[in-house]
Every structure is written in C-alpha cells, then in structure tokens.
C-alpha cells in the first residue's frame, strides 16, 4: 500500500555527523525499496536527479556499472568550464536492501570515502539511510568545507545544538 503523495508534507532530509569520520543522512520515500534502490543506482535514473538543478548545475556524465567490482563516475557541470567529478567502485550490491561503494571527489583524490546505504521498507515507505565513512577527520572536514559541488554523537550532537542556538 503506497501512501498518498499529494497533499502530504514533504519528506525531510536529515544529516548528522555521528563521529569525526562519519556522516549519516536519512530520507524517506513513499515507494517500495526495489524502486527506491533502482532510482538511487541506475544511471538512467540518477542522471535525472543527482544534479541539484535549482543551483544551476547539470549532469555532464553519469555512468554506473552497478555490480560488485563495477565502477561509476558522475560529473556535474556548472557553466562551460566548471566540472565536479565523483567516482568509485561498488563493493556490495544487494538489491533492494543494501549498497556499499567507495566515493572519491576527484579534486581530492586521497579522500576516498566508503558509503553504505540501507533501504528500509515499512508500510510502503522506504527510508534510505546513507552512512559515509571517511578515512580521517581531516578528509571529512575538507569534504564538508568544500561543500562538494557548492559548498554533525557526543561532541557532535552538542556541536549541532550549540551551532543552532548561536545562529538562531
């Protein structure tokens, strides 16, 4: 049973830095896990959503060989000259529940992250939970600070609260 889409509040994306080297992002989709898994992985679908269009960014390249050992490369373009390439290798592909891959922002080739994505389906709603593990705190700080194409437990929960209260 798929919940009705229209008239319901937008699903919110949560982002939390759970340790020095880890980020966890969550987002629910009103669809079964196999469809969410396909939309997240198949290049013909990824090219339709991976570029944040409101920022004037388009998808210049989107190739993915979605199987263990297979590689992918996504390239974002802004204007004529700016290119932002992300690439990596699939380590585990278990449709529709789990996906593990490496990810390198090619501008920082030493900063390879391992991304584990879980697709948890319940009552027709699938929650995507992406866990990014970076090789070091410095690499994650750098990735965050560069904002990729454009641009937080214990201490980081405190930090998130602190930041919120100070900037509010």
């Amino acid at each position, binding site marked *: 049973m*798929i919940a009705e*889409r229209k008239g319901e509040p*937008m*699903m*919110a*994306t*949560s*982002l939390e830095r759970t340790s*020095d080297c880890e980020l966890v*992002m969550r*987002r629910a*989709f*009103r*669809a079964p896990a196999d*469809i*969410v898994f*396909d*939309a*997240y992985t198949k290049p013909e*679908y990824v090219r*339709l*959503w*991976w*570029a*944040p*269009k*409101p*920022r004037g960014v388009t998808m210049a390249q989107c190739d993915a060989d979605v199987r263990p050992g297979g590689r992918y490369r996504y390239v974002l373009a802004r204007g004529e000259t700016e290119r932002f390439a992300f690439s990596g290798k699939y380590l585990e592909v278990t449709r529709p529940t789990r996906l593990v891959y490496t990810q390198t922002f090619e501008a920082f080739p030493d900063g390879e992250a391992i991304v584990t994505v879980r697709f948890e389906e319940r009552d027709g709603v699938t929650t*995507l939970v992406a866990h990014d593990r970076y090789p070091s*705190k*410095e690499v994650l*700080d*750098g990735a*965050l*600070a560069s*904002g*990729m*194409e*454009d*641009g*937080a437990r*214990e*201490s980081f929960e*405190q*930090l*998130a609260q*602190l*930041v*919120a*209260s*100070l*900037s509010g």
Partner: protein
Amino acid sequence: MIETLTALAEPNRLRIVELLRTHPRPVGAIGAALRLNQPQVSKHLRVLKEAGLVTVEPRAQQRVYQLSPEPLRELSEWLDRYRRIWDERFNQMDDVIEAIQAKEGKTRHDRRKKR
C-alpha cells in the same frame, strides 16, 4: 571552515566554547570550571583564537576570553547548505520514483495479484 570544524572537534575545546556562551571568562575560571590545568587551557584557547572562535581582552591582571559567534554562524549556514543540496536531490528523486511507479505500476499490480 575547516579550521572551525577542526577547532571544535576536540571535546575540551567544545566544552570551552559552551562555557563561554553564558559570559566571558578569564583563563583561570575556564580551567577551574572544566578541571583543566593552565597549560591545557592556554593551548586550547590558542587554537580557538586562531580559528576566530574566541577573542581575548586584557582586563586588570587577567586575560578574559569571550565567544566570537561568527565562525559558528558560518558553520551552521554551511551545514544547512550541504543538507539542502541533498534535499534538493531527493526531491528530484521523488519525481523519478513517481515516474518509475507510473510506468511499472501495472506490472507490479499484476504480479502481486498472482501471489
């Protein structure tokens, strides 16, 4: 931004920043409140100062530290900007999912009926 994150990633420095939220304090009071010795506090304050998170003001015989919230404001804006990028992506992914479901809906429905 890297400097701000690196400075705050150390638990004792984060505690110092939290302590200074209420009001400016001299070095000695910071050490006493957090049970840190003077060299430790001075080291952490130096990192925080270099990151622009605190400013220091000599007052009588003391050096009084106060919070400078601007880097934290930038950090908050940045964190939220990163989250918003993904939010935009996932909103676009909703449209893709809707299209896939529209296309595959009948097939899925037929398949389910057979079970």
